[in-house]
């Protein structure tokens, strides 16, 4: 039982913020205070629904030295992420009810925040045979995705989508056309040419999206795009939404706050998939998040050890950790005047929760008390070695950021902070 006093309440549901109190009773948000509740004076700090982060890679099973459920959970708690929706691109991949149960058990044992696992859409993420979508749903899979593997055979994709539709399963797709994207380390343009890096045209995203939109029209599947990162893909997304398809889109925080020039002299911590884009693309996707065309912001948390990053750029592994930097990086958009805080938390908390059919992401009575308390202005310089993640591959090392998490609660229980 908690009563938060003097909070700046960020309510993405109403799109408003106000000063006031918030009551938590039995792990749920309540209209009325419980007698004897712990009182937390927020001193005007922001209180918002905890972040629901779709697409977190926890490297269990297979590469626990890069990230475990324990370390990822601590990082999430420190970053205000109260629900991690985990990716199945582990080794082995999460493509059977048995491996899914392992994940669920490990998560329950050691993670301080909620973990909802996703499962692969095809066995081994190989794009040939569909997984046991029904059994996996029963075992608790909240969505089905082959992550950055695209099902190249369109017939296989069609059948997977049809079958998933029959069970009402949510499919998450990576819409980078695989032929063009193969081997690419940068987005085509002056920068990639100057650095001599293998490039991919931003049109690869439009092409991949166009194919999947046609498949959605054919099959009626519930579909979410993991990342839309280019201006040219946005009109296609907008049309698909206008046509009433059950489609939503996400974008990684890195594509919202960095561009291709940040790679500079082959800095491999800036190698992500799809590659960072031109500044015009970054601006376009920021505007699309503000307008609601892009629904969800996620960290695309991808731990990589030093060895896999300390290589020539082309050979280096892709991906960046993001659980702890998601909120301060997202606040850059707020500080830059791109969007207000309720809009930001619509993309960080409310929309991902809605998409997965969860009650989180809200401050209304009856919603689970998954909350983050933060000071949006507190400045700091990020030191990657202070991150909770086992892997320290953040592109924000040494960056000046604003926004400190002061406390995180999951179901009314504090999982981070002591104030």
């Amino acid at each position, binding site marked *: 039982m908690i009563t938060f006093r003097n909070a700046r309440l960020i309510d993405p549901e109403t799109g408003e913020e106000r000063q006031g109190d918030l009551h938590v009773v039995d792990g749920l948000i309540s209209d009325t205070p419980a007698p004897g509740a712990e009182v937390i004076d927020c001193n005007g700090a922001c209180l918002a629904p905890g972040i629901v982060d779709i697409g977190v890679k926890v490297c269990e099973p297979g590469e626990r030295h890069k990230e475990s459920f324990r370390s990822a959970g601590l990082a999430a708690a420190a970053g205000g992420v109260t629900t991690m929706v985990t990716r199945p691109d582990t080794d082995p991949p999460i493509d059977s009810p048995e491996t899914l149960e392992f994940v669920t058990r490990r998560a329950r044992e050691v993670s301080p925040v909620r973990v909802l696992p996703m499962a692969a859409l095809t066995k081994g993420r190989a794009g040939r045979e569909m997984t046991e979508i029904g059994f996996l749903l029963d075992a608790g899979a909240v969505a089905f995705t082959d992550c950055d593997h695209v099902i190249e055979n369109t017939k296989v994709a069609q059948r997977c989508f049809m079958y998933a539709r029959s069970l009402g399963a949510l499919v998450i797709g990576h819409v980078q056309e695989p032929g063009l994207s193969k081997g690419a380390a940068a987005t085509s343009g*002056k*920068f990639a*040419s*100057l650095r*001599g*890096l293998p490039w991919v045209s931003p049109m690869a995203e439009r092409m991949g999206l166009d194919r999947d939109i046609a498949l959605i029209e054919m099959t009626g599947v519930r579909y979410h795009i993991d990342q839309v990162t280019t201006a040219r893909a946005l009109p296609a997304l907008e049309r698909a939404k206008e046509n009433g398809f059950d489609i939503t889109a996400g974008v990684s925080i890195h594509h919202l706050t960095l561009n291709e020039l940040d790679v500079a002299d*082959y800095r491999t911590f800036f190698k992500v998939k799809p590659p960072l884009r031109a500044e015009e693309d970054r601006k376009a996707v920021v505007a699309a998040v503000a307008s609601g065309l892009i629904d969800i912001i996620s960290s695309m948390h991808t731990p990589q050890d030093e060895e896999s990053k300390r*290589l020539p750029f*082309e050979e280096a592994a892709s991906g960046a950790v993001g659980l702890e930097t998601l909120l301060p990086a997202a606040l850059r958009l707020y500080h830059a005047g791109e969007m207000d805080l309720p809009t930001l938390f619509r993309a960080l908390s409310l929309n991902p929760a809605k998409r997965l059919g969860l009650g989180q992401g809200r401050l209304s009575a009856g919603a689970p008390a998954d909350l983050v308390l933060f000071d949006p202005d507190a400045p700091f310089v990020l030191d990657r070695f202070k991150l909770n993640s086992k892997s320290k591959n953040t592109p924000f090392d040494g960056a000046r950021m604003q926004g400190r998490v002061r406390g995180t609660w999951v179901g009314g229980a504090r999982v981070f902070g002591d104030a």
Partner: protein
Amino acid sequence: MTFRQDHLLGIEPLAQDEILSILDLADDYVALSRSREKHADALRGLTQINMFFENSTRTQSSFELAGKRLGADVMNMSMQASSIKKGETLIDTALTLNAMRPDLLVVRHPHSGAVDLLAQKVNCAVLNAGDGRHEHPTQALLDALTIRRAKGRLHRLNIAICGDIAHSRVARSNLILLGKMENRLRLIGPPTLMPAGMSEFGCEVYEDMEEGLKDVDVVMMLRLQKERMDGGFIPSEREYYHRYGLDAEKLAFAKPDAIVMHPGPMNRGVEIDGTIADDINRSVIQEQVEMGVAVRMAAMDLLARNLRAKREAAA
């Protein structure tokens, strides 16, 4: 002489005066190399290691000769044959070599940026002898020296670079250097071999060879890098030769005194006609090889001076 660099990783970090310093010193070394005693001791007492992760006879021997003419102890390591096959990482290889206390490290690597990465991990001067599709600075410098000696200047020239621009580090280094020296640059090649965004570099891009060669002072041909072709960039060698191979007919569109260059090794009958390559009135391809040794001597000399100054300051 002004030269402020610790490494020669590319043309991009160099200022105009630094480029001219290398070229001026290289002129002296051309004279030395043509003299009876072709030996100096600018690098005496220093160890030069040539580390080639990619096959190269020409560049490696040019660096080797340059080092030996200046009195360095030169060692060649062919890296395809050694530990890379055993799974050692680039960084570990660099650290191992660094422990042998080299002073000059000459590196060629198939991946862009690999030489930059290596330079961060060693405490000697690193020379990039070609990294992926990124840069090949000594090639651009030797080309610049050749042009300056043939044309009497290195500015306000119309220069065409023709062929496989996309896979060519030679083209990148050259267009950066020649751009810094205020020349007009044209890139000529089929669109499949042209990287994106080239017009933003201030280059004119042509798909038609005759149009592109009109009134140029310098024609730089590039090797059609067959080993880099995944297939499908061009229909066939013979169609490429027909449309983009330099022959007398196409060369007639350039200025009458235009010079013809090629970084070698040439594919005669693919990107260049044999008789053009051998025409002593037009082709400066043999001079390029000679200038290569002199430019590498100059670059290593200048880097060694900075290295010695830095070590003395630290001592």
